[in-house]
């Protein structure tokens, strides 16, 4: 009987061309996720509005001890940069899930100059660190692209595994060559000279981020490079047919994608952490993948979703939630719920479920 019931529901591929606007769907799923998250909080016996209120307060409050909103923005900056970075690769259907490792590689190279060449003039030092970050991340991004072009290796596995290698390099440096006190793991704090300046409450990385968002949008939509990336994402055969040098575009794009992640790594060490540690990427490279996907690879929307995730993270990290008797891990749960709901909604962009009445039976 139950099978009879289920057999009345069918999954049908949507045939109409227009469909629902995918971005609208992303936002709808966000709303749905907040509702489901609220129900979850309700099950814990708490008032969801109070909890959401606390989260928002924790993320945006301007207190005497410092403005929380600046912290939230600081948290969002690497997310914006890395999500744009992976968006560029994703547009090409090159599944770069190595933003984490590329961030780390950039952070390592930048840290070298911060730790050992800090006598340089301040602005020159920062510039060198940015370039070092870009080169570090870019090279780590180019390696899987090279093997993909040469031997058709799987970039998903390749970029993923490089993440762990990059992470291990930090551990090695911390325990060995770059250790502050021999025998104890830990790298020294950067000199003030190697730290990003604060402009308007947040480190100067935000200006770079704003410029990047605009530049990335133009790059993807109006330049020859952007056009090539889109065509390759559509079909490599079409790209070859059009006379593109496909391998060159893939290598170039992955360098750019990796370099942006590397710069994000540099900004993180120099602007927030002021030292190099294993937590420098801290999963942001993976969160970036989710953000890129939710934003449908649109840089401007990446900013919105990055702020959202930063708000959740920052808002849940304070002591306010603890006072309500909730753990800061609520942020992770809410993120998880958002993700699930969005995946479910994604299904509905392409399919619909129809219920067949009994009129024909």
């Amino acid at each position, binding site marked *: 009987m139950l099978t009879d019931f289920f*057999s009345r529901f*069918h999954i049908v591929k949507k*045939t*109409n*061309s227009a469909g629902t606007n995918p971005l609208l769907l992303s936002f709808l799923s966000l709303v749905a996720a907040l509702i489901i998250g609220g129900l979850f909080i309700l099950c814990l016996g708490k008032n969801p509005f109070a909890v959401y209120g606390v989260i928002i307060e924790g993320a945006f409050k301007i207190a005497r001890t410092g403005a929380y909103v600046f912290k939230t923005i600081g948290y969002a900056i690497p997310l914006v940069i890395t999500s744009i970075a992976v968006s560029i690769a994703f547009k090409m259907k090159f599944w770069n899930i190595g933003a984490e490792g590329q961030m780390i590689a950039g952070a390592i190279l930048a840290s070298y100059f911060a730790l050992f060449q800090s006598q340089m003039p301040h602005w020159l030092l920062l510039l060198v660190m940015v370039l070092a970050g870009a080169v570090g991340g870019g090279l780590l991004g180019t390696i899987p692209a090279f093997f993909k072009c040469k031997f058709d290796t799987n970039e998903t596995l390749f970029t993923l595994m490089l993440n762990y290698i990059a992470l291990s390099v930090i551990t090695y440096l911390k325990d060995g060559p770059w250790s502050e006190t021999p025998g104890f793991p830990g790298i020294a704090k950067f000199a003030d000279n190697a730290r990003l300046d604060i402009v308007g409450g947040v480190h100067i990385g935000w200006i770079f981020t704003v410029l990047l968002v605009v530049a990335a949008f133009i790059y993807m939509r*109006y*330049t*020859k*490079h952007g*056009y090539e990336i*889109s*065509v390759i*994402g*559509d*079909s490599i*055969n*079409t790209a*070859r*047919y*059009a*006379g*593109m*040098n496909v391998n060159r575009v893939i290598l170039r794009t992955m360098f750019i994608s990796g370099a942006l992640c590397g710069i994000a790594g540099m900004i993180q060490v120099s602007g927030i952490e002021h030292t190099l540690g294993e937590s420098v990427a801290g999963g942001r490279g993976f969160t970036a993948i989710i953000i890129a996907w939710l934003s449908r690879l649109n840089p401007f929307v990446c900013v919105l979703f990055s702020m959202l995730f930063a708000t959740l993270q920052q808002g849940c990290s304070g002591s306010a939630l603890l006072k309500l008797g909730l753990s800061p891990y609520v942020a992770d749960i809410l993120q998880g719920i958002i993700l699930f709901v969005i995946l479910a909604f994604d299904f509905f962009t392409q399919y619909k479920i129809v219920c*067949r009445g009994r009129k*024909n*039976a």
Partner: protein
Amino acid sequence: MNKQPAIKLCGITKSFDKVVANDHIDLSVQRGEILALLGENGSGKTTLMNILAGIYQPDSGEIFIDGERVSIHAPEDANRLGIGMIHQHFKLVDVHTAADNIILGAEPKGLFLRKSRYEKVREISERFGLSVEPTKKIYNMSVGEKQTVEILKVLYRGANILILDEPTAVLTVQEIRRLFDILRRMRDEGCAIIIITHKLGEVMEISDRVTVLRKGKSVATVETASSDIHTLTELMVGSSVNLSIERTERTHSGTLLETHHLSVESDDGVRMLDDVSMTLEKGEILGVAGVAGSGQRELCETIAGLMPIREGAILFKKKNIENMTPRQIFQAGISMSFIPEDRLGMGLAASMGIIDNMLLKTYQDAKGPFVRKKDARLKAETITEKLRISTSGMDAPVRLMSGGNVQKVLLGREIESDPQVLITAYPVRGLDINTSYTIYDALNEQKKKGTGVLFICEDLDVMLELCDRIMVLCHGKVTGIVDAAKTTKEELGLLMTDAAGKGDTENVD
């Protein structure tokens, strides 16, 4: 025998959003009868057959099988009712044997496959007089054999109502004849058969009755014996059409493109072109005939600079263009247009709109880092008007357009670049009569301008009428280059299977 029709459809209606694909369609097939379903693209044939196969559900209308009213909710229901569909594109697992493909999805109970499956399959194939070796792997099979496996697959499931969707598109003349023999034998065994096809000659040959669909409506059902090609065309198109394809006089002469002893290998080292020597003259249409996979695609892609040459040379006006990339060929001042077989996967960027697709081959010419969309927009508007492309917008992804419109976008772009050489691979495949004639006209126009046209096609009738010369390929070798005005379908068919024997390059001209 049961006097009730095997299938009877009454007032079947199915709409997708605002488009009515099937509008109160009536149709019936008796046991022991072959019904041809005729109609242009978009007339609703495939939708109707998908309803029978349980892939779509009708909005309204009734289906009767052997006089009993049924509803087909899913492909399994269709299976149970004895309806078997043979799709145009084979749905076979290449690395499996014939028998494994045949039992796939209908395996007997138990964890392991039994050896006896080969016997079972052999039994069935013998009963219907189909020759298939059950242990042969699909990738070792010819197209004709694959199709036989598809037919066996539905027979194995006990189907006695067969639906074939354009089964002859990829077959040689000889294979078509064999297929028709099989169908006739099955008809005589009491099966009901529906065959969808574009080719009127085949309709006349194989069917007992014809149902014609136009714009989602069934406009007529006629006895084949009391009808003729002309009447059927008129029913299908809705107005009288001139069916003959014009072969325009040649007004230019001189050699444009030559290949000398051209050999090409696929990525895995299989020789796809073997010692091909040919010339393409100014202002001629050179047809290339051959069984699917005889090297047509490789010939096109090699000339277009997309495949590396193993041996031999390609000359354009005596200038060697061997192993140049498409971009280098263009930079050498040679205007070569290529309309590939895979329109959305190679000729166009599927998720982009018409405007962006116009840029595909010219975007690199703009100065500076940006693409120039203004000219592309103009070009897009020009071809949309000239070829009467119907579109929901210049930026709407081309993959959402109908096949005919997609081809018009591609052809329009390639012709707008004023080519000296125009390579067309299966330019009318899957297109309806009107669009096909638009394309033939466009090719003739190019011919008049002095363009050398390489025309790859699977319809020999069309080739005989349109082309000046026809080159026949078999296993990558040239088995003949003949004068289209003086040859026959039978001669081409023999050359296509290399019945002459050795496969040596011999000019039958």
